[in-house]
């Protein structure tokens, strides 16, 4: 008949490896392949650059609304790089960097952002999900992928991304609980970028960390410095390993920052101070990682600069290529494609309105 404090399993941890000055906690430093480190850095640059281009194109009216990634490159690439190609990538709508790491084609993404359905075509061998606009709605999907993996006794993993705001949705809760109950191989990567549009993290939930939300589902939670790509990678490696071994899901909270607008339809000056942005710019994940690579002697200054240029060059032709592709795309009746495996008769009739001069109201 006691009154007592209860202990909570599972573990809840905090992890940071590389600080803002590029200084390292050597005990925690992961043992990563140099080539991979360079690849990670390069992809961060590509993401940053592509973001800038998309913003320009958007301002110029070439593409529609999109959600820039700048500031979250470490959070995304650190996590995504822990997965294999055969693992599943289940993004939200801001995963430009993760998408590029997966080998996604910037031209496709440009088409998508220019309003063409063809932009979501997914290569036959890629296990990438399309952008998911409804906040948190992709989490149940990832959970289902993972169920199928487990049922067949495979060792793939589903890695899904979402924001701090997404943790408030019922879908977040139901998915984590489902994954916990069945101990599914999912890695839940929360991109806590401090804002859900105009609502700051502290007003999204009274929970002190987002990682601790895992406790509600018996899921280990870890909060990492999301601008420290090494910390993110280590946490993700462990989570992936746990999932692959059949030991269930993990919730990884990456503490990071959205340096730009929420989407191009947004005006952050209405709700946040430029000072806050400036403070976070000092924690920019890209220079931090560059300093690390330089200190380690993996890249020297010249190589690093060169890489920036080569990335710029690589992406320089994307718009032109996208434009060329757009020229080749079908007319309005493309909208009838892929609604069903086979077009039902009434849709076949409706499609004709668009393809021919027939009278519209053909009893569709």
């Amino acid at each position, binding site marked *: 008949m006691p009154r007592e404090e209860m202990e909570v399993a599972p573990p809840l941890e905090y992890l940071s490896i590389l600080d803002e000055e590029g200084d390292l906690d050597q005990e925690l430093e992961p043992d990563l392949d140099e080539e991979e480190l360079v690849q990670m850095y390069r992809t961060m640059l590509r993401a940053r650059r592509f973001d800038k281009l998309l913003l320009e194109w958007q301002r110029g009216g070439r593409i529609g609304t999109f959600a820039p990634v700048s500031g979250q490159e470490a959070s995304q690439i650190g996590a995504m790089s822990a997965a294999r190609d055969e693992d599943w990538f289940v993004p939200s709508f801001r995963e430009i960097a993760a998408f590029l790491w997966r080998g996604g084609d910037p031209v496709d993404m440009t088409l998508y952002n220019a309003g063409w*359905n063809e932009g*979501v*075509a997914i290569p036959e061998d890629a296990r990438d999900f399309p952008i998911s606009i409804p906040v948190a709605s992709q989490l149940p999907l990832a959970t*289902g992928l993972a169920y199928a993996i487990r049922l067949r006794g495979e060792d793939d993993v589903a890695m899904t991304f979402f924001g701090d705001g997404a943790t408030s949705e019922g879908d977040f809760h139901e998915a984590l609980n489902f994954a916990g109950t069945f101990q599914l191989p999912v890695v839940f990567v929360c991109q806590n970028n401090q804002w859900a549009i105009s609502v700051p993290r502290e007003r999204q939930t009274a929970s002190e960390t987002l990682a601790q939300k895992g406790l509600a589902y018996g899921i280990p939670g870890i909060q990492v410095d999301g601008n420290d790509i090494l910390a993110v990678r280590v946490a993700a490696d462990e989570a992936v390993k746990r999932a692959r071994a059949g030991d269930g899901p993990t919730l990884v909270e990456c503490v990071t920052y959205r340096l730009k607008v929420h989407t191009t339809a947004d005006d952050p000056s209405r709700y946040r101070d430029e000072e806050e942005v400036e403070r976070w710019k000092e924690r920019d994940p890209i220079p931090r990682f560059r300093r690390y690579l330089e200190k380690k002697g993996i890249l020297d200054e010249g190589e690093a600069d060169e890489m920036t240029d080569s990335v710029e060059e690589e992406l320089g032709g994307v718009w032109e290529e996208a434009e060329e592709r757009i020229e080749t795309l079908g007319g309005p009746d493309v909208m009838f494609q*892929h609604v069903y495996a086979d077009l039902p008769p009434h849709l076949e009739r409706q499609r004709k309105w668009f393809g021919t001069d027939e009278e519209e109201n053909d009893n569709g």
Partner: protein
Amino acid sequence: MAEMTMVEALNHALRQEMERDESVVVLGEDVGEVGGVFRVTDGLVDEFGEDRVVDTPVAEAVIVGASLGMAVNGLRPICEMQFSGFSYHAMHQIENHVARFRWRTRGRFPAPMVIRMPYGAGVRALEHHSESREVFFSHIPGLKVVIPSGPRLARSLLVSAIRDPDPVIFMEPKLLYRQFREEVPEDEEAHPLGESRVAREGSDLTVVAWGAMLPRTVEVAEEIAEEEGIEVEVVDLLTVSPLDSKPFTESVRKTGHAAVVHEAQRSWGPGGEIVARIMEDSFWYLEAPIQRITAPDVPVPFFAREEAYLPDKDRIRKGFRAALEA
């Protein structure tokens, strides 16, 4: 051949499909040990194990969303909403993803899955257990909506739904779950989706019905034929969406009169679509306005008054008479 109730026939379909194809899995609340609250999944967990017959937490959105993930990753999930009244909890997953995942991925990740749900009034159930909202699902492009009207068709339609490459909302009229038995062959039988059927031939009046309204509509048609020599042609939709309208619009060309019977509320309900299709295809043959014989536009009352809510034989007959007036 065995005489089966609809519940038994559905169970038969599930069992055979699970035997035939090991990618078929069943999931939902209480579908395991207890065999579903209506026993549609009775015994499956014993035969196929807990991994393929999955008791889930009480959480409809993830039941549906996870089913989609399973479908994308090679399984053929059949998930159950314990009652259609709780399918709204998963509406966003259905609308935002399930219905259009094929489309969202340009064909790369189709969603071959079935969402089963008992629906409709008439079994003295609790509040929220008796609605008939086929329109919600039928109005969403990319879904197929199937409603059987008897045991044998329930079995053969469910088989087709499971094998279909697209997501199917399979609505089970629970009033018919145990109302009557039919011969259901042991051997495979699959009724194609997207085909309605003439349940009774007739030359005087065309009536469209489905689900629990179908048997009583046919009964009234039989009675009226016997008593008054009026021959009613009854079309049973089976697949509500995509709608196969030819059988009834062509029937109207022959009869000149039409009615639709449904247990959904009237306004903005399914009857409107039936009327509009006839209007578009067979207007010139109409000799009288088409009648909608439906439930009123009120929430389904608690069960003491649900019989009054549902179109009964009397109201169906009155509707027939109104449709026949020229």
